[in-house]
């Protein structure tokens, strides 16, 4: 029975109240590829990235106008009621999108696929500590990652690097080729406009090849040149850069002309095709296969990824041309994923597992944000493009554990009557420890037993 516990907890998002453990764990995981909904109604009801880009532009312009008026009046910014502040709408959009993400995870028929979406959103992390990403972070996951989670890695990569959230988060949207039309005009007027290599570096270091995999500064700069023009329309004041509308736009006037050389290969394409050709080669590069395989192996096989598992996933990636379901199938078939040491759950993982355990279907939007903040992992706010760390030392801190225990008691108090003893056998079939069984049996009330279950060692790991 232990395999069904691993399928539920390590591959999935934790068992759910009232659902029997899977009888055939591998089949249960594989069948999820067919059950997964890429565009559920809750997602399509949210504002898309073009709406959110416009909302950001309006907020920015309102803020600017308010500041201009305040400056003209010689005073400070007026004290505006919170609901009228320019960025309020974006903050609300963030709260709604974060609630949809959480509720999907609580109710999904395909928890393994939802976990993979969270994995990729963290691999290609954008963080809402920039205002420009605040509204767009949810749309990034729903538009770029979710529809491609069961596709090719190259398509996922291209969707990610073209999404306005990524282009704005890592400053690509404003990067100007010095010899582009606009770069030359600016130079003649004495305005220095030029390259920004932020996105190009993170593509090589974080998204594809991985750090220390053999690329150099010149590769970063050449990729940055090739990607000039990958921009976002609907934001710029300048007519030349406004684009056809809000959203991704290849802005030819800022593209650096000429051939590029990346990793020793020459790219003679012009315009957008050049960057696309480089990204497709990077997606298929052996270093990328190794990098992705290592991260997946760490997520499912333990903090020290087993070498045999890395090799299996790497081979599946290379042989299938980066076909992600092929890689996931190799993962499901790999013995290392079913035997490795348990992972310490992140705050996100633990909270989902606790809420699923008590059968929560929908979390109030405000509780959502507050809980993940207090537990140390606010949604879409890892603080850096490297995303959240995926090893225990980042999460297994004394205070972090204490907070979970506090939250466990709160969740149990709201959950209503439940027999924690039978629930425990269902959540961890064949894997419940004797001390936990005893603690539940000896609790002073059903609510306390449930709180102890949510705080139990089994619940802290997957």
């Amino acid at each position, binding site marked *: 029975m232990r395999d069904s516990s691993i399928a539920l907890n390590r591959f999935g998002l934790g068992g759910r109240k009232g659902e029997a453990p899977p009888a055939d764990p591998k089949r249960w995981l594989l069948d999820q590829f067919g059950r997964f909904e890429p565009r559920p109604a809750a997602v399509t009801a949210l504002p898309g990235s073009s709406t959110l880009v416009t909302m950001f532009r309006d907020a920015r312009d309102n803020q600017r106008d308010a500041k201009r008026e305040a400056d003209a009046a010689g005073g400070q910014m007026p004290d505006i009621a919170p609901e009228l502040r320019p960025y309020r709408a974006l903050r609300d959009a963030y709260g709604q999108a974060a609630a949809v993400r959480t509720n999907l995870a609580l109710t999904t028929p395909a928890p393994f696929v939802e976990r993979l979406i969270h994995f990729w959103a963290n691999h290609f992390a954008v963080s809402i500590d920039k205002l420009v990403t605040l509204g767009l972070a949810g749309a990034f996951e729903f538009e770029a990652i979710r529809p491609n989670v069961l596709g090719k890695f190259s398509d996922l990569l291209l969707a990610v690097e073209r999404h306005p959230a990524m282009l704005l988060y890592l400053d690509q949207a404003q990067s100007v080729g010095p010899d582009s039309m606009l770069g030359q005009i600016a130079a003649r007027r004495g305005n220095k406009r*030029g390259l920004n290599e932020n996105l190009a570096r993170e593509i090589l270091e974080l998204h594809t090849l991985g750090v220390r995999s053999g690329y150099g500064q010149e590769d970063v700069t050449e990729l940055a040149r090739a990607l000039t023009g990958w921009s976002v329309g609907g934001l710029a004041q300048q007519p030349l850069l406004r684009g056809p509308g809000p959203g991704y736009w290849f802005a030819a006037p800022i593209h650096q002309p000429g051939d590029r050389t990346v990793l020793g290969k020459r790219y003679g394409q012009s315009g957008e095709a050049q960057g696309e050709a480089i990204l497709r080669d990077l997606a298929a590069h052996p270093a990328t296969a190794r990098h992705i395989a290592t991260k997946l192996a760490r997520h499912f096989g333990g903090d020290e990824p087993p070498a045999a598992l890395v090799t299996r996933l790497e081979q599946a990636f290379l042989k299938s041309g980066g076909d992600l379901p092929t890689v996931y199938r190799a993962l499901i078939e790999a013995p290392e994923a079913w035997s490795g040491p348990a992972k310490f759950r992140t705050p996100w993982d633990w909270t989902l597992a606790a809420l699923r355990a008590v059968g929560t279907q929908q979390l109030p939007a405000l509780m959502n944000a507050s809980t993940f903040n207090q537990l140390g992992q606010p949604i879409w706010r890892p603080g850096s493009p490297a995303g959240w760390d995926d090893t225990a030392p*980042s999460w297994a801190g004394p*205070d972090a554990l204490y907070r979970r225990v506090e939250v466990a008691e709160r969740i149990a108090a709201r959950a209503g009557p439940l027999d924690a003893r039978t629930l425990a056998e269902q959540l961890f079939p064949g894997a419940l420890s004797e001390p936990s069984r005893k603690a539940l049996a000896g609790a002073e009330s059903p609510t306390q037993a449930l709180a102890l279950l949510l705080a139990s060692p089994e619940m802290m790991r997957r």
Partner: protein
Amino acid sequence: MIDRRSLLTRSALLSGALFAPRLAWAAAPTERRLVFVIQRGAADGLATLAPTGDPAYASLRGELADLGGGTKLDGLFTLHPALTQLAARYQAGDALFVHATASPYRDRSHFDGQNVLETGGKLPYDRDDGWMNRLIGLLPGSDAKALALSPAIPTALRGPATVSSYAPTNLPDASAEFLQRVGRLYAEDPQLHGLWSEAVQTRAMAITVAEDNGRGAAAAGKLAASLMTGPEGARLVMVESNGWDTHAGQRGRLANQLGGLDAMLGALRDGLGAAWANTLVIVATEFGRTAAANGTGGTDHGTGGLAFMLGGRVKGGRVLADWPGLSPSALYEGRDLKPTTPLDAVLSGALAGHFGLDPALTARTLFPSGASKPLEGLIRA
């Protein structure tokens, strides 16, 4: 689980409170204190302490060269205008700057660079423990209790010396009866038992110091100071400061960041009172930023940068710099400030001087995979 304060906190975070520091501390039976501030994201040393007297500076930096004022420290360097309290410490003789410095790390990844800075290794990930943790072992009475004032423990403090953690929270307290049962439930799980024991002890001690919730820059300085005074006070504290990666819009963002850092350091000094005389504060970042401005009003990842220290025993009022210059041929790989002073020599020299340790032993312990000769004369005898 919801209350008004946590909502306020959330909106403060989202509205761009750039300085959201997290702290970590360690206690030891010495009167000497250390605060290590890590600026995550590669702080721009060339704008923090700007070489305005270098003939190449203005053209490399363009609009960014105009800091909007500042304090001229000498013919070469101008301190950023947001750093008013730091300027006062310099005038008073207890702030010391080291320019054109770098760890042994020479590539430009934040995450690798921070790893080298925190572990004291020569290469990224060549060690698991951090130099602050190893420093605890050198201090008198090395049963020193160490503690991270963030939910988890930053790499610099990880290692064999036991480290607990604490950070202010808005969560309501759990009931005592339940907590005792959790303690018993964890008794046979070595990992959870250890974490739980540390958390329970620390909560008991920290209950009085979190009244302002520890948020904001000045509050962080005050909180750190209050945790370092008194008989149970910590001796080693680490403050994590995020948000220094200024690829675009650097002028405004950096001024905010530096203003926050200045307020934190000022509140720390005020809160320490007489203990300031026994305190060493070190501020460092993983690497510097490009000598030239980029095309988007910012700077990209570079190499050589700035570290500085302050405190009652620092032989300050000076800028230490074997200045390499900013002419094209003087730049590292044609783009970055060339590092001329090893950062590990600064750290081991200052820490040995401050704690009265043997310099060579300190260097070997903190930087075991190859240490530079410790710099002397950073601390008053």
